[in-house]
Structure formats: C-alpha cells, structure tokens
C-alpha cells in the first residue's frame, strides 16, 4: 500500500458545507425520552432490545427444559412448544439482533466514528425508535391475546401459519404480522439515517477508505436491510390479507380440518421466496456489523493494524452483494424446481471465499501482535471459534445434495445458532464491554466480565456443538418430543439432557452480565476518555460520555486510517485518527 506524501495529508480542504444547527433539548422529556440525540436513541434501542431479548432467553429455557426432560413439565405442551420456538426465533433474529446492531450500535457509533455531530435526520431517527418500541409492544401483546402467540415457526410458512391446525391462528399471527410491518417501517426510518449519515456527514479527511470497519459493517448491513426488508414487508401484508380478507396470495385449493377451504389459486412457495429473499440477507445483516466490530476489537486489543484493510472492506461489500443471490439455499427441499439447486449451491459456496478471507485476516491480525487478553478480546476470540465452526457447517447445508438429509433436522438448528446466534452475540458482548466506558464513563467489572465470557463461550459451545450430531442421527427440528423411533438411541436423550443443563447455566450467566451493566454504572472504575488506547474518533471526544453534538466547538479533522497501532517510530503504540502528522509519525500514516 502506498504511503501518501506529507503535504497531501496536511492539505485537507476546508469544509464546503457549513454546519447545520442541531435540535437542542429544552426539557427532561426531550432530553431523555423524546430525544433526538442519536446516543440517547441508541441507549433506548439497546435497552428495549435487551429487554425483549430476555423474554426470548426465558423462552429458550422452556424449550430446553422440554427437550432435555420431555414429559416432566406439565406446563409445556406441544402447542406451547411451537409458540415458544416461534417467538424465541423471531425475537432473537429481528427484535434483538437486528435492532441492537443497527439501532443500538449503529446509532451510537456511526456519528461518533465518522466525526458527525448527530445523525442527519434526528427527528426521523427519534420516530424510528418509537415505532420500533410499538412493534415490540405489539409483539409482546401476542402473549396475552386469546389463543396466544403464533406457533407457525419463525418462518411463518403458509398455509399452516394461518390455518386452524396451528396454535395462535386467531390473533397471534395477526399481531405477529402487524408487528413485523411496524418494525420494518421503524427500521426504514432509522436505516435511511444511517446510510445518509455515513455518505454525507463524514468529517473532513474521513474518506470512505479510512472508515473503521465497524462503520463499514453497519453501513453495508443497513443498505442490505433497506433492500431486503421490503420483501418481508410485502410478504407480511399479503399473508395478513390472506388471513383477514380471505385473499389467496399464498393459498392454493386445500382442505382445512376435513373441509374444502375457501382459498384457491395461490402459491405457498412464493411466500418462501419472498421470506428468504429477506431472510438470507438478514443473516448477513446480523453478521456484517459483527464482522466490523470484531475487526476493531481485535485490532485495538492486539495493538496492531487490521491485516488487509482493503480486502476486508471489499469482502464486506462482496458478501453483502452475493447474499442477495443465495436465498433459495434455504429451499433446496421446498419443492422448487430442482435445477435451481445447481445455481444456488454454487453462489452459496462462493460466499465462503470472501468470508474465509475475513477469518484469515482476523487471525493474521493476531499474529505478531501485542495481544491484551481483555474481556472484549476474549469475546472476539470466542466469536472467531464459534463463527468458524458455524460457517463451516454452512458449507454442508449450502452444498445442495448434502443439505437433503440434513435440512429440517437439529443439524440446521445447531448450525444457525452457532453462526448467527452465538457468534453475533459474542460480538454484541465484546462490543458492549468495549464501548460501555464511552457510553457511561465507567468500566465494566473485569472479573464478572471474564466469568461471563467463559461460562457463555464454553457453555454455548457445549450446547450447540453436540446438537449437530443429533441432526446427523436424523432427529428433526421443531419436535417437542421425538417419542418412539427405531433410529434414535436412548443415549441421545442423555445428550439432550446435558445440553439443557448447559443451556440453563449459560442463561443464568447472562444475569451476571445484566448485574454488571447496572452495578458498574454506579460503582465501575472511572474510565477516562480513551481507556483502551484506541485510534478511532469516538475515543477522541472532548467529553466522556460525549455531550450533545459530540465534538464541542470544532469538528475533528481526520489525517489517517483507524488502524495506526504500533507504528514504528511513534512514541505511543497508537496514533488517533485526528492527530496531525509530524515527521516521525507520518512514516506510518496510511491512506
């Protein structure tokens, strides 16, 4: 990579557009509740997402209790089990991970990392949160409507999602679809903000190729989400019409409980195409921000520049683009035309290449680093282990013919939990331990953090690694009880019980984390402005936590990329992005 000459670095042009006056809160309400400050909105998003996530966590305990000890708990029957898996999946994927990565991390980090005072449309940003909150409340309400929440599985496949053989057919499914529609409306308002802010509000000197990878990850994920969520939006609207008005978008001529139904002429497969046209990019909407965060955690805590920055950026963009042409790998055994299998298996396995490059570059960043085994670093290491494991099992399921025996078995459940459950949540935790000092001004407790990491990492691995083998055995997913079979040995039930115990332990470790979040808010060690010695702009704010408008009087000017760690000849082992070049430092300055 070419080092740019000194005079170039210094010659950053003056801003062409003057600053726009921010909205300043006038009361407690507009400061903390109906706030237009992205940082407050980020905290609101995060707290809401984690609260509804706790519900999903409790649901997973219920599921594990049933699977580990079938028949023991009279308060879980087949219908409830289906309702639990449906709500658990939907909450975790959309209302927790998507909202937390984009609404939480995105809102907090984008303006700070690109050197902006706030998001470009603060009012719309505020609306985004309130619509999201409404979506969460509608979703939570399904637990209390007659018939309970829908038990159609998080994929909501028609016809069964809206027919009477499925729990929650009366109100649950209607509320679920309404909530999804609201979520997408809310997300679109936020998403436009994130994209425009990255493109338009970067401070002087912050070229696209100097952005921290966290911003690249969140930015690309948001662009993808803006393109993918509309497919879910129309699918939800059409399914709602099928359910409420008796249209037949997805409903062929069929029999409902022995009677010929009023439906006819629709296509159930069409729903699956729409769902997965959203659903596959969704995997990467959750993964790309995690990729970005992990890159920055590894670089900062190994005191070393991220290896192959440009390749990392292009890998993110390539993965984002490719993820729109692989959706039907979720449908190899759906009954779509079998020749689709050739195309989608090929595109799916091609994605493995840019993804593998990212993994190589993370571990190569560790190589010859100065690795501080802080809690964020531990979570980053845990992320790599679980992500590599889950990514590799993706090569089984993506390779069409290998998918045939494994699809709809516990192997799939194990795979996607590893790759888009455990791995992204490792990035979330790592990110929280890393940025909590900036958000609150205090450090999270280290001992509790390490306890949280080891129990979560080892425990989750102990739950999901053996689960693959239940799938190989042929155990289907979405069974509340496998019952009598000739092919599942008794020992598999012991394995299930073991996994359940591990899952409960992991669950309780999260309570330690929540305690740490609250306790450290008051009793945590004072953090100072830049406790990790990090280079990116959010650590260079004049105040910690950053005030309204982020930067005081003057916006920062960026002279270098975000990865000038351990630059030869520099006095310290990091050079902030906004530090002007001097002779000694400029040697390592990177475009």
């Amino acid at each position: 990579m070419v080092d740019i000459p000194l005079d170039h670095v210094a010659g950053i042009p003056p801003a062409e557009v003057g600053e726009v006056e921010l909205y300043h809160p006038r009361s407690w309400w507009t400061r903390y509740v109906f706030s237009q400050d992205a940082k407050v909105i980020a905290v609101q998003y995060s707290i809401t997402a984690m609260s509804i996530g706790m519900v999903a966590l409790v649901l997973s305990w219920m599921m594990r209790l049933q699977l580990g000890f079938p028949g023991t708990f009279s308060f879980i029957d087949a219908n409830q089990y289906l309702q639990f898996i449906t709500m658990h999946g939907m909450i975790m994927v959309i209302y927790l991970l998507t909202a937390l990565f984009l609404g939480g991390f995105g809102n907090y980090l984008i303006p700070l990392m690109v050197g902006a005072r706030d998001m470009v449309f603060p009012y719309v940003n505020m609306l985004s949160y309130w619509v999201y909150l409404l979506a969460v409340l509608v979703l939570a309400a399904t637990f209390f409507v007659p018939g309970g929440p829908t038990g159609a599985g998080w994929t909501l496949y028609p016809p069964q999602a809206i027919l009477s053989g499925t729990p929650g057919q009366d109100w649950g499914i209607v509320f679920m679809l309404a909530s999804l529609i609201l979520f997408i409306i809310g997300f679109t308002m936020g998403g436009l903000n994130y994209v425009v802010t990255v493109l338009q509000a970067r401070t002087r000197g912050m070229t696209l190729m100097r952005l921290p990878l966290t911003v690249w990850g969140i930015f690309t994920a948001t662009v993808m989400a803006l393109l993918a969520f509309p497919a879910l939006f129309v699918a939800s609207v059409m399914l709602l019409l099928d359910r409420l008005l008796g249209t037949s978008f997805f409903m062929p001529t069929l029999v409902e409980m022995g009677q010929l139904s009023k439906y006819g002429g629709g296509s159930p497969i069409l729903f699956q195409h729409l769902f997965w046209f959203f659903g596959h990019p969704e995997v990467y909407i959750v993964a790309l921000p995690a990729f970005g965060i992990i890159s920055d955690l590894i670089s900062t805590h190994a005191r070393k520049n991220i290896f192959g920055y440009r390749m990392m950026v292009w890998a993110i963009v390539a993965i984002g683009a490719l993820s729109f042409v692989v959706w039907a790998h979720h449908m190899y055994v759906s009954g779509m035309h079998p020749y689709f299998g050739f195309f989608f298996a090929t595109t799916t396995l091609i994605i493995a290449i840019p993804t593998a490059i990212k993994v190589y570059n993370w571990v190569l960043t560790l190589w010859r680093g100065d690795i501080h085994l802080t809690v964020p670093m531990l979570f980053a290491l845990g992320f790599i282990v679980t992500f590599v494991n889950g990514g590799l099992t993706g090569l089984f399921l993506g390779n069409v013919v290998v998918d045939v025996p494994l699809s709809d078995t516990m192997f799939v459940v194990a795979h996607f939990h590893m790759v888009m459950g455990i791995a992204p949540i490792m990035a979330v935790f790592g990110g929280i331990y890393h940025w909590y000092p900036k958000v609150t001004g205090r450090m999270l407790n280290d001992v509790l953090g390490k306890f949280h990491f080891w129990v979560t990492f080892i425990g989750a691995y102990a739950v999901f690694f053996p689960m693959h083998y239940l799938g190989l055995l042929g155990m289907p997913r979405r069974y509340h009880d496998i019952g009598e079979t000739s092919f599942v040995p008794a020992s598999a039930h012991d394995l299930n019980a073991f996994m359940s115990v591990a899952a409960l332990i992991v669950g309780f470790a999260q309570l330690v984390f929540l305690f740490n979040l609250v306790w450290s808010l008051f009793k945590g060690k004072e953090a100072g402005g830049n406790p990790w010695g990090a280079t990116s702009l959010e650590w260079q704010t004049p105040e910690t936590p950053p005030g309204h408008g982020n930067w005081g009087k003057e916006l920062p000017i960026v002279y270098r990329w975000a990865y000038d760690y351990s630059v030869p000849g520099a006095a310290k082992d990091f050079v902030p992005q906004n530090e002007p070049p001097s002779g000694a430092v400029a040697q390592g300055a990177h475009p």
Partner: protein
Amino acid sequence: MAVALILLLVAIASVLFHVYSPWWWTPIASNWRYIDDTINLTFWITGAVFCAVIAFMAYCVLRFHHKEGRRAAYNPENKKLEWWLSIGTAIGVVAMLAPGLVVWHQFVTVPADATDVEVVGQQWMWSYRLPGKDGRLGTSDARLISSENPLGLNPNDPNGQDDVVVQNDDLHLPVGKPVKVLLRSIDVLHDFYVPEFRAKMDMIPGSVTYYWLTPTRTGTFDVLCAELCGAAHAQMRSRVIVEEEKEYHAWLEKQRTFAELSGQRDVAKAAYKTGSE
C-alpha cells in the same frame, strides 16, 4: 497461556467428540451412499480448516500475548499471502462443490424404470397410493376431496380405478427397485422423511413434488414429517416396510383398489338409505 490452552482444547474436544461419540447417522437403506460420501468429504475438509484456524489462533495467543515492552509489528497488508489464501480456499470450495453437484444431478435425474408411488400428507397422517396393473396413477384434484374420496382421486379417470390406496397404514416397497416418490399434500406443507433413505422433499398443497431412490436393504423404517405442519407435527408418523419382491406382491394383492373402496362405500351408503326408510 490458559486462554491458548482452552482454545486448543475446544478444537481437540470437538475432534474427539466427532470420532468417539456414539451419535452418527443411522445405517443407510437406499442408493444415496454418495450423499454420505459427500458429507464425509466435507467433514474432512472443514474439520482440517477448523483445526488449523483454532490452532493458529491459540499459537498467536500463546506467543504474542502482552508482555512488558512487547510491541506489535506493523504490516498493513500482504497482497501475495492474501491471494494465496483466497486461491487455497477456492480450491477447497471446488473440492466440495463439484462432487456435490454431480450427486445432485443424479438426485434430480429419475431413472426411466422407476415405479411411481404417491405419498399424500394431511394433518396428521400419511396415505399412500400405488399404481395398479396398468402401472399408472390416475389424476387427482383437491376439489374432489370428500369423506368418500379423502385423497381427491378423479373418479372419471380410468387409470385411477385400479390404483391401490393405503390409508393411514404402512407403505411397502420392494427392495432393489427404483421408486419415484410423488409427494402431494391436501392441506399444509409436510415433508416425507425416512432417515435411512437420506432423501427428503417438502409436499406442497396444489402441486406434486418428487424424489427418487432405490431401497437397498429390507427392514422397517420410521416415516416422520420434517416440515412443521401444526400442532401434531411431531406425532405424524408412519412406517415403510422394505421387503423382497415376492412378499411385496403378496402384500399388494391384499390391498384395496380405488374402485373397490369407492364401490364399497356406495354399497354401504345404499344399505344405510334403505334401512332408514
């Protein structure tokens, strides 16, 4: 030190679990051994990559963890290394994809001598239909479904009159003969899943899907539903009995045809009518 060791132990434990745990796929009973082979190949390649990445990571943590005075190296990129790694990955991907696609081609190419067998899914039971002496299945339509004609067979189709209908009972198949399994649902999505056959495919109301296989050993195998179909999804069971051709024909002889079943119903109804008058 401890962190590196634990990371390494995770990889070693995974490999040991894979090798020594008793949980592995059930012995195969169809011609799809190629699928198992492709999975095995994939296990070898991905397993090697997994161990290599974790071992390298553990080495880095051990060798380069922070010590007083250590300073990280500064190397933004290494084009050559990145390209070699990409090419190596691409080779690994091709090594898995190519055999996968070849086997998929076999999977979707039904041999000409395969016999049709229809499987009908409904909440929450399985029915089967086998062609009669003419070797052909009659047409069906969901709109014809009634309590007299639960599978919606076309009463005016001459091909369908001798079709053998097995309702809510075991399916028998002759060993060693290729079968094209036609899959039909009359209500919601189902999936005809016999773990020992390795093959599976969703059944969709409104269309007929299929796969083919050749049963390779005799025995009794569980049929499960692998696509969520509502409250009793987990209880939607049946059995497939693969047997020698002679036994199969003996079983087939005893089954009722569509004509017999519908004729018998007409008789029963007529008798009822007379009785009530």
